[in-house]
């Protein structure tokens, strides 16, 4: 009964467009009152859930990402990718996928990434003869894949929700992102031949070296993160601080195009985004507690029981739910509401927690770029200036490639587990 009351309040407020965090908060208050529990729990949870060392990585990664984007590092990555693969048929399209992989490393927020890549790449794509719907598809699919490339805020949050090491999760993401990227590149290659996409002239060695030199500053970061985590040199929080310092030095003393007031403005924006993310996590903690005591895990347990016989089937079922949740509610709210409820069932049937987290991260990434509601997709379409209806047909192959990549990650746990296991972070 309490479960029903809490959920009904949540859904009504959600449908009425109250921000999700307050819909969760208000329904949690209703649930606490209805079950006769003290409201004091709300106050203490809000503070204690946000007083968290691991989550401290969020403001620094967001700050670093926006600083690097403002300094124009995305442009140098685009140039490098074009010089590397632009001469192939459909090479520019493939370079979008390659750029998304590396750019995700320096950009904490998906929305910031879509807007950076959209503004940097869409004009070149159009000029090279790509239709707007193909351009939007490439950017959307590439960014969806980039969800798995660390440091993603989502990974920090899901590691916290499922009580896993953020570093293990970061390391686990590199290979699955590559797998999805490879699926996307195959689609690009096929599309390029079918639609007759153009190719750039082959880059001379000097142009390639120049592009590499210009992109060296942002390219250091993935290597620092991968190497540092692999060797166990530092924690996610420490990596965040180091990357923030690196971004600051690069923007201020190498690129020299970011003023002090812009630095402060970016730190303010990082503060607002941090507040939004961690407050959501904190409020959802109370909501989850209520769901927990009112029998929601048992309910989901029954719902998913038919899938529990096969791990891949179970993971596929949960991934579909997460994908749909992610499409409707955005990734983070989906993570804090749905994942804590299904996670215990996953561990019970023997799914490795890190594998589970990686599959959910990939599903949320795809959900954000799934028509007709995925908010990331809507943003990518804004750059292409087309509607969902005009775009959807061109997007189908990319969506299928993303889903094929997701299935590969689900069916082969080693893709996710190899790196953290060989680094000794998991068993």
């Amino acid at each position, binding site marked *: 009964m309490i479960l029903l009351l809490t959920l009904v309040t949540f859904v009504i*407020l*959600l*449908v*009425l*467009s*109250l*921000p*999700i*965090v*307050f819909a969760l*908060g*208000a329904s949690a*208050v209703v649930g606490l009152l209805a079950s006769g529990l003290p*409201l*004091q729990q*709300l*106050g*203490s949870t*809000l*503070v204690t859930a*946000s*007083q*968290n*060392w691991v*989550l*401290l990585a969020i*403001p*620094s990664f967001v*700050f670093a990402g926006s600083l690097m984007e403002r300094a124009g590092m995305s442009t140098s990555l685009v140039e490098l990718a074009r010089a590397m693969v632009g001469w192939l048929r459909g090479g520019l399209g493939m370079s979008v996928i390659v750029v998304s992989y590396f750019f995700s490393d320096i950009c904490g927020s998906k929305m910031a990434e879509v807007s950076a890549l959209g503004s940097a790449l869409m004009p070149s794509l159009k000029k090279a003869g790509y239709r707007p719907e193909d351009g939007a598809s490439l950017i959307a699919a590439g960014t969806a894949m980039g969800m798995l490339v660390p440091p993603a805020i989502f990974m920090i949050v899901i590691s916290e929700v499922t009580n896993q090491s953020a570093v293990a999760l970061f390391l686990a993401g590199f290979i699955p992102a590559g797998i999805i990227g490879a699926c996307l590149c195959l689609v690009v290659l096929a599309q390029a031949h079918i639609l007759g996409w153009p190719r750039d002239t082959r880059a001379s060695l000097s142009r390639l070296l120049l592009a590499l030199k210009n992109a060296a500053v942002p390219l250091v970061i993935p290597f620092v993160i991968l190497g540092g985590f692999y060797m166990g040199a*530092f924690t996610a*929080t*420490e990596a*965040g*601080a*180091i990357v*923030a*310092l690196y971004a600051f030095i690069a923007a201020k003393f190498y690129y020299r195009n970011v003023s002090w007031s812009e630095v*402060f*403005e970016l*730190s*303010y924006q*990082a*503060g*607002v*985004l*941090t*507040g*939004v993310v*961690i*407050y*959501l996590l*904190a409020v959802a903690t109370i909501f989850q507690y209520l769901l927990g005591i009112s029998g929601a895990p048992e309910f989901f347990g029954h719902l998913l029981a038919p899938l529990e016989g096969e791990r891949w089937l179970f993971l596929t079922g949960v991934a579909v739910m997460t994908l749909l949740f992610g499409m*409707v*509610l*955005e990734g*983070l*709210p989906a993570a804090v509401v749905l994942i804590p409820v299904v996670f215990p069932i996953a561990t019970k049937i023997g799914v490795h927690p890190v594998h589970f987290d990686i599959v959910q991260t990939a599903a949320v990434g795809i959900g954000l770029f799934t028509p007709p*509601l995925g*908010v990331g997709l*809507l943003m990518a379409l804004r750059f292409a200036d087309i509607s969902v209806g005009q775009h959807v047909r061109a997007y189908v192959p990319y969506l299928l490639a993303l889903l094929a990549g997701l299935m590969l990650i689900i069916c082969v746990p080693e893709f996710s587990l190899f790196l953290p296991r060989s680094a000794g972070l998991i068993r």
Partner: protein
Amino acid sequence: MRFVLMLPRIILGSLVLFAIGVMLYGVLMRYVVLPVTDWLNLDPPDFFWVEEVGEMALAWLTLLGAAIAVKERSHFALSLFVHRLPRGGQAVVHVAHNLIIAAFGGLTAWLGYQLVLLNITLTTPALEINMGWLYGCAVAGGILMLLYALDAARRPHDPDHSFADVRE
């Protein structure tokens, strides 16, 4: 007056830079100074407070950031049909939203105040900071959220203060 209105913005931005600075200090101590003092057989540096201060800064960042996000309309919201309602209907929903948020902010501040009173005699382990300062973030954030939401509720026809079109 303008300075007072800018104050939360200044505090929030400074808190982010401060938290990053504290973390960098921790990194410097752990990876540079500690090995050196070890090597020279000197007393190790005391930087255990870094975690304590960093976490407290994050709690303040979160509660203040969440309040400011009400003003900036940065919280995630789902846009289904509210933006298609007639102007009057939208205004009613808008006022209702902000009153719920104001009530939630007020409740947070009140609960935070109770927690401050409850913990005011306790101190943190490393720096012995009064725990009241930690829970004070719920009071400050709650009050700020209440004020921003009430301010937004006063302007039902201002499109810049609606949550409903966030996704559009």
